[in-house]
């Protein structure tokens, strides 16, 4: 049983979906209840992962391996390390919350709606646990389809434009990524005379820098579009604005992390020489910093509340990619933690827009104002999410940002100095939207009688809030989980990094010792 824990986590949502399909479409309440039960079960079965995870092991754990398409050398090979563990947990929790938040928001084609969400859960978990590149690619594409329908069917007025843009853009990226994957696949055959997509085998490849660079850029297109990195981000605001609330939550909290995860899982370890190529690293850092500042400035100016949150994602994900390409333990661990944090805080921000959208059916900031009077609890939750997103200490965002910036500073002082301005601007756009929507007098009569949060809405926010506090106050368990795999990754990309660090510390120690004896 426990040998197949990971498979159970992976396929519980799918099983839930299959059962859901047996329920007649007219039984709307039963469909809702079942979808929530299945999603909650998906979350519950993922919790043992956290308990059984061996923190002292930097490699993959809970590995399951079997043939899938022997002719092509494709294996069903799954397993997790600390990075995947956190992202899987984020996925299972966010999936449940997204489904719970849809209770009243969706009133047509409920059955297909919930089926899409459950299918998507399996797809996303699959992306984070696959250890076979082919399997990974399959899950990567599986995720695309439900989201296409979620935006295209249950979306806003320009849903078709947004859905097609999302689909075509991401697909274009993944096709290039596929070319990269195939390059590695055939190179492996050339060098070892058998075909495989397994990561552990591909790691043994010895690739010349030129090929590594080409493959890096091919992967880059795929991952950068997904993140999205500047300047591949323009599908994101459109997709977010048109997507239903739950779709936005999943999109921001989980889907974007597939891109950053791709960099960490594939680009860095498989292409270590390209990943430390100064030109590539500089480009990545500059794109990240541009995203941080540019995303924040554009976010500042948005008139649409949801679009504002969407652009803030661009800025936050800029921190995540900057951390990755700092190529040191603080940068990468901070990046993974910040990916979780962004899932929590931006998930909350989208849910917040959803709460008022459900009541007022508008997302324009100027239609609101003074909501704190009629919805004090809601105002509190929004303030909490805002502070979490703005990186206030003792909440989650601070830990991630600080660790990333420390890593960036170790890599380059200039990067850090520029990136820190993003923290200033982050406060600006959030405080401003808070002022315009929550504070002041109620200017629009339609807002005068809005009901405050219902119990179900509280239930949607509370898990995220609890998680935000946990990470903010006691993040050590998260760093414990990440320490070994991140160290292994840094050592892979920069052999001898830790020895050099230790030697330098030793030298400093001797130095200061000499100083004191000389006195």
């Amino acid at each position, binding site marked *: 049983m426990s040998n197949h824990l990971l498979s159970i986590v992976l396929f519980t949502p799918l099983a839930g979906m299959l059962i859901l399909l047996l329920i007649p479409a007219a039984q709307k309440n039963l469909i809702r209840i079942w979808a929530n039960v299945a999603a909650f079960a998906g979350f519950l079965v993922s919790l043992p992962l956290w308990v059984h995870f061996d923190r002292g092991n930097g490699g993959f754990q809970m590995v399951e391996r079997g043939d899938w398409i022997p002719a092509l050398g494709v294996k069903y090979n799954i397993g997790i390390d600390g990075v995947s563990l956190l992202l899987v947990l984020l996925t299972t929790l966010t999936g449940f919350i997204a489904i719970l938040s849809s209770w009243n928001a969706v009133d047509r084609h409920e059955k297909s709606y919930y089926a899409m969400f459950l299918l998507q859960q399996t797809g996303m978990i699959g992306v984070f646990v696959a250890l076979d590149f082919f399997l990974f690619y399959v899950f990567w594409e599986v995720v695309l389809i439900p989201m296409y329908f979620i935006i295209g069917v249950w979306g806003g007025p320009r849903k078709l434009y947004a859905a097609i843009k999302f689909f075509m853009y991401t697909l274009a990226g993944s096709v290039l990524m596929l070319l990269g994957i195939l390059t590695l696949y055939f190179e492996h055959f050339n060098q070892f005379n058998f075909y495989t997509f397994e990561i552990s085998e591909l790691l043994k490849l010895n690739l010349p820098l030129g090929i590594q660079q080409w493959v890096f850029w091919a992967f880059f297109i795929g991952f950068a579009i997904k993140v999205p990195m500047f300047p591949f981000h323009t599908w994101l605001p459109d997709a977010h604005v048109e997507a239903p609330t739950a779709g936005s939550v999943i999109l921001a909290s989980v889907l974007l992390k597939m891109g950053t995860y791709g960099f960490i899982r594939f680009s860095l370890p498989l292409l270590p020489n390209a990943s430390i190529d100064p030109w590539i690293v500089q480009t990545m850092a500059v794109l990240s910093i541009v995203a941080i500042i540019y995303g924040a400035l554009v976010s500042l100016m*948005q008139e649409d509340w949801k679009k504002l949150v969407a652009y803030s994602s661009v800025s936050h994900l800029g921190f995540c990619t900057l951390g990755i390409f700092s190529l040191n*333990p603080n940068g990468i661990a901070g990046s993974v933690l910040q990916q979780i944090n962004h899932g929590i805080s931006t998930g909350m921000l989208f849910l917040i827009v959803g709460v008022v959208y459900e009541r007022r059916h508008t997302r324009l900031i100027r239609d609101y104002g003074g909501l704190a009077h009629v919805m004090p609890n809601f105002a509190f939750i929004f303030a909490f999410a805002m502070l979490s997103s703005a990186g206030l200490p003792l909440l989650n965002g601070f830990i991630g940002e600080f660790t990333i910036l420390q890593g960036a500073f170790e890599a380059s002082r200039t990067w850090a100095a520029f990136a820190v301005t993003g*923290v200033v601007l982050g406060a600006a756009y959030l405080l401003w939207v808070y002022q315009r929507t929550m504070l002041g007098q109620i200017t629009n009569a339609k807002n005068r009688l809005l009901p405050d949060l219902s119990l179900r809405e509280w239930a949607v926010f509370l898990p995220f809030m609890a998680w935000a506090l946990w990470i903010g106050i006691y993040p050590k368990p998260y760093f414990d989980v990440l320490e070994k795999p991140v160290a292994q990754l840094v050592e892979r990309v920069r052999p001898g990094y830790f020895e050099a660090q230790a030697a330098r510390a030793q030298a400093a120690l001797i130095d200061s010792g000499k100083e004191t004896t000389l006195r």
Partner: protein
Amino acid sequence: MRHLWLIPALPFAGFLLNGIFGRRASKAVVNAIAVGSVALSFLWVVKTLLSLGGMETPHAERYFTWIESGILNVGFELAVDRLTAVMLLVVTGVGLLIHIYSTGYMAHEGGYYRFFAYMNLFMFFMLILVMANNYLLMFVGWEGVGLCSYLLIGFFFLRRSASTAANKAFIVNRIGDFGFALAMFLMVVQFGTLDFAGIYPAAAEMPAEQTAGILTAIALLLFVGATGKSAQLPLYVWLPDAMEGPTPVSALIHAATMVTAGVYMVARSSALFLQAPLAMDVVAIVGLLTAVMAATIGLTQFDIKKVFAYSTVSQLGYMVLAVGVGAFGAGIFHLMTHAFFKALLFLGAGSVIHALSGEQDLRAMGGLRKKIPLTFATLLCAAVAIAGVPPFSGFFSKDEILLAAHHHAPWMYWVGVITAAMTAFYVFRAIFMAFFGDSRGHHHPHESPPSMILPLAVLALLSLAGGFIPVPRFLEPLFPAEGAHHDFALVAVSVGAGLLGIGLAWLFYVSKPGLADSAAARLGALYRLVYNKYFVDEIYDATVVRPLIGGSRAVLWRGVDAGVIDGAVNGIAQRSRDLGILLRMFQSGNIRSYAAWVLLGSVFVLAVLGVMGGLR
């Protein structure tokens, strides 16, 4: 274990209780929780300090490891030494008095429980700030008090000006935090730790050729943080606007405690600053300039709270000057006496405002001496203290600073003396305008309730006698006194300057009213420049805020994002579509056109082959 954590935890418990249950609780219960938690915290401070005795070495307690990643290792660690002891007494003592005062002042305001929840939360973060034993935890308190400041400035959130002032305070402080954060990154890289106990000895042992660059950079970056929090040039602009908050907030946060955090931080980091003389000079000059500039603005304002706000900026300048010239003990001494007399000035102003049902304009006051005598008496105590009249508290602390400044560079002393004269002038100007002459308003003033008068009385006593608390001597183990000896002539000059200021204020506003207006008229443009606060807000608006907003909207968003980038994306899609439309024409379904295309194609192929010489 002395359970230091209880000191901040008690107000935090008060915050939770009032925040969660306060809405449904009666005012008496809210009061009991809010005031009680701070009182208990104060008592716990006293008990802890008594049990710690001399505190020759810091008493530290580590509770758990907070962040452990890469080269970072930061513990949740609190500590008490003599410097923290002074701060703890000021924060919890003055904080307690202001909490008591607020129960009277806020009695008729909506959101009563919310106010006290925020105040308690503020106490929690402020205590974390002064007790933290490493920079990151100090930063937690630092950001936390900023948050509470934001919440309390914007307390009357119906007023747009209040929420705008709150945003301004938060964002300007964030600009300062930019420096603080970078300083921390640099310290981690340089020293491998953020613990005070690890950094200071290492810094002290650094050879001089290494200190110049690194330590100067660290010190200057930390000071950038301090200019935000302690409202120094060029980031002081948020503090005058912060007066939008309720008056007890101005007293507690924007006079007595939070704004002094920057001074505390520099004093705490004295080991770093002393190794960076260049940074020290910058600190001293910024402090001095801020002191003069804010004092001149204070001369011209008519809103009683604005006068005291600029006075606070100016007095903070004195403290920064003190730490900049290396007189850390004097800086902390002035921090304490200022907490007494400035809290009193604000609370007294609050009592006046309360008596006049919200009137803040000095021009609409006058003749209140008889109507609210207790308030007048206590305010007078604060005024003589801040004006540096011996033997009241401000006299001692200010003279310590001025003497140290003279020891460092005589010109700094003289600028300080001029500022002292202006200080005495603007404070007594406010007193005379409010309490002397004839009533210019249409109010029916009433004296404040005992809950407000009692704290005023206690603070009045402290303002008068607080100078006899030997703070610099108490702090000597931490900050060895420099050679500044007491020079009677220098003391006499600065006291004379203060008395001159008071005399001029009497002349202008009591004995010859009207002189002020004619003087203002004669100064013309200069007066308008100062009255309008040197147009600094307008300059920032025109050079930073507007370009940023306009550029982001027109250039970045509409231009780059929607125009260029998304234009390119949609352009590619459109070109593909156009290509498809073009190719579709070939698929017409018309047999004759297919035949024509086949023929044309064949001719083309043959032609190509022919040209290439393939047909022979």
